[in-house]
């Protein structure tokens, strides 16, 4: 058995929320506001809807092949070599995505808190912790997340309450000022983010009760969508669409707005805690998926020997992918959405499901 861990339904929901929310919380508002202006929250709702469909798709596909991960059932659907090729694509995607995340992570810490520290040092530290967690298996970072996520969500809620005095709901008006097209455009990137729920197809074999997978995926998506939409509304209500789009990290500035009774201020440390802790879990999930996938692709008995090499690749890629934080943002805003969404999140799973149905592979979807 490559991965001996089993996780419960609540643990899985928490994990899937942590996999999306902490990064999205920080980056999505800026990009969405840029495209959809004050209607960004509608974009988020649209994206949530899309993510629900994607979750449905991934889970249905996965449930046809009980006990098999995404990396295994491709072979069953497409045959040995085409399947292996598709699996390799997914492994690439997980590594690439994770490298982007590590880079986002490093960029955030460096630009917001420690401008003089070399980014590689920040990334090295977090990758090392992630490697330690991944080496110890799914259950370990799931348990870490069980402690971390309630703290994150708790502090987000507290922050939301604390910034209410700064909000001006009139900023959200007028609705649909520029029509529906910008709103749909704005939904692409959050959809790509929330579509990472496709990772359920890797996780399902390790659920203690696989039949709950549909509910788990839906619950995680709805929680994520809710928090993202609320953040979007608040950012726009505080800053207005122009300024929000101009910030690199609107959520950070949102916290900087907190001034309560002259002593409760400058709570950015909380934001850093949220981001580092949540980012760690997110990196762990994709890191684990990449390690597990590689081991299954190579038909190894254990993925542990792959953890360190993968970490080195991650780190190297995260440094070489982009020249600057602006390049990173440009890539994320312009290319990431279509790239991830059309190929990995919707495209291939849809194809797989179609082929599986046509060739009659796997059991009926649960």
């Amino acid at each position, binding site marked *: 058995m490559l991965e001996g861990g089993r996780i*419960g339904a*609540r*643990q899985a929901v928490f994990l899937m929320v942590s996999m999306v929310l902490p990064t999205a919380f920080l980056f999505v508002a800026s990009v969405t506001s840029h495209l959809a202006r004050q209607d960004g929250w509608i974009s988020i709702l649209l994206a949530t809807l899309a993510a629900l469909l994607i979750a449905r798709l991934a889970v249905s596909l996965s449930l046809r092949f009980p006990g098999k991960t995404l990396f295994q059932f491709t072979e069953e659907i497409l045959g040995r070599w085409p399947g292996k090729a598709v699996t390799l694509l997914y492994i690439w995607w997980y590594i690439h995505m994770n490298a982007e995340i590590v880079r986002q992570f490093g960029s955030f*810490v460096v630009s917001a*808190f*420690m401008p003089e*520290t070399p980014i590689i*040092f*920040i990334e090295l*530290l*977090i990758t090392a*912790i992630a490697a*330690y*967690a991944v080496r*110890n298996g799914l*259950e*370990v*970072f*799931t*348990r*870490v997340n*069980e*402690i*971390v996520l309630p703290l994150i969500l708790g502090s987000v809620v507290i922050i939301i309450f604390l910034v209410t005095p700064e909000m001006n709901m009139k900023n959200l008006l007028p609705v649909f000022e520029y029509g529906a097209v910008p709103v749909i455009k704005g939904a692409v990137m959050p959809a790509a983010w929330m579509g990472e729920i496709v990772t359920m197809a890797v996780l399902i074999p390790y659920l203690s009760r696989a039949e709950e997978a549909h509910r788990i995926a839906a619950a995680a998506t709805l929680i994520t969508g809710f928090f993202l939409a609320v953040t979007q509304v608040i950012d726009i209500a505080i800053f207005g669409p122009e300024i929000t789009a101009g910030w690199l990290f609107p959520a950070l500035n949102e916290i900087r707005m907190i001034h309560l009774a*002259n*002593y409760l*201020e*400058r709570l*950015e*440390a909380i934001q*850093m*805690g949220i981001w*580092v*802790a949540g980012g*760690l879990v997110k990196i762990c999930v994709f890191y684990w998926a990449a390690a597990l996938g590689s081991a299954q692709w190579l038909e190894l008995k254990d993925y542990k020997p792959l953890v360190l090499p993968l970490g080195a690749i991650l780190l190297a890629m995260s440094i070489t992918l982009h020249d600057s934080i602006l390049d990173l943002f440009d890539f994320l805003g312009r290319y990431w959405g279509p790239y991830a969404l059309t190929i990995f999140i919707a495209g291939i799973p849809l194809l797989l499901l179609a082929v599986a149905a046509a060739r009659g592979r796997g059991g009926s979807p649960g």
Partner: protein
Amino acid sequence: MVRFIKPFKAGLPGRRKPAAGQGGGPGEHREGDVFAGRGIQDRELSPDLEINLLMMKTVFSECSDAIFREFYFAGDERIKLAIVYMDGMADKIQITAQIMRSLMLDAPLVEQDEELTRARALTTIKKLLPIQHIEETNNLGKAVDAVLSGDTVLFVDGHASAIINASRGWEGRNVEESQTELAVRGPREAFVETIRVNLSLLRRKIKSPDLKIEMMKLGRVTKTDVAVVYIKGIVNDKLVAEVKERLGRIEIDAVLETGYIEELIEDSPWSPFSTVYHTERPDKVAAQLLEGRAAILMDGTPYALTVPVFFVEAIQNPEDYYERSVYSSAVRLVRLISLVISLLGPSLYIAIVTYHQEMLPTALLLSLAAQREAVPFPALVEAVVMEFAFEILREAGIRLPRQVGQAVSIVGALIIGEAAVRAGIIAASTVIVVALTGIASFTFYYSASVSIRFLRFPMMVLAGTLGLYGVICGVLTILTHLATLRSFGYPYLFPVAPFSAGDMKDVVVRAPWWVMLRRPRLIGKTDPRREAAGLEPSPPPDGRKR
């Protein structure tokens, strides 16, 4: 000749090889003859008293505390007896009054009309011994073990067996108040060094035949009594099997403290955190047993081990359950915050003062800056030096003779604290943080406090090099490590992760007893129900009001 000696020597505990230079002296010659090439463990006793005594004397040669006493049954020279016991291990009054007196003086009076013969002597003697527990054996090894445990062995001439008389009695400490785990309210007694006393303390608290005490001996040389204690029907049988299995694996010459056992049975030997709980409070052990845990007690130490342990037990204290729940919950919060302070206090201070001054309110920042202006060292060096000084003081405080205690505390507090600040070597704020951290680390379970004090130093280095980011990474590393830990197979972070809503009643808060209806979910599965529902007290109904 050497061929004969070797197996005997191998049979002797702790003597694998014959000592050098004892090639073939006359003494060894005799040993070889007496034991005829067999170890004492499977050597049977002889009907000849002289041979039995010779064997015992050979085993106990150069043991000046082994006492041999030969006498006649009722003064009758036909029936020769001998007792062997260890001076200081056996109760002399009992030996004199109940063994020797009844056999030498009282015997003829009781057994007047029966004719005493050598053949019937053993049965008669067994009838005549007013001892609460006797045992017959024909094995030399058992007789030797009995003598070493403080029992008295009685040999009867003409019979190839010996009677082991329970006569253990030695000097020991009385049951006293716990020295290390104090409580304002609650039982004061603590375990002592004698396992029998300790077991009786437990039995007095749990008067149930389900309280099982399984004895075993550990230590090839020391042959220390070790007891595995659990409550059948509450404990998970697999846990008991696992405990016994791990204890059975131990092959060591000596166990002098439960710490030896702890290190040999824990799940993660390299972790800074202990996955075995130790306590000297019987009430604590009883509570642990009642939650479905198993305890390991050992002769010679007042510290008992309990397994499995969860990390949250660090902030639990027996007194929480004796005081009212609202107050206990508040105190528990104090302990939780102390735990955080004692891990993060100095590192957060270093991070904020060095990298994140903007997080401080301006007035505080100015006052801090003014204090630190004259200090020649960076905050990291200052804090590490002071923390280390505190560790020195703490260690000295434990080891120093009581008479010089005052001198050290005066020197420690005044010189290191006050003078260092006055001289401008250390900022006053650093001293405050270090002192607070030091005090905070004593509010919770001592073993966890040791781990956390140890982890404080790497945390400080992380804070000094990477600021808040380093601190957060450090905390996440510790958290990840805690998530990997298991105690006898049970996840260490239970009930927080894996989360168990019902068990959160006894983590950050201590819910009233009428709410905690169930034992901890993971360990108390066998008999989950602790009490009846609906026990919440309330004033009497209208009819009974005065």
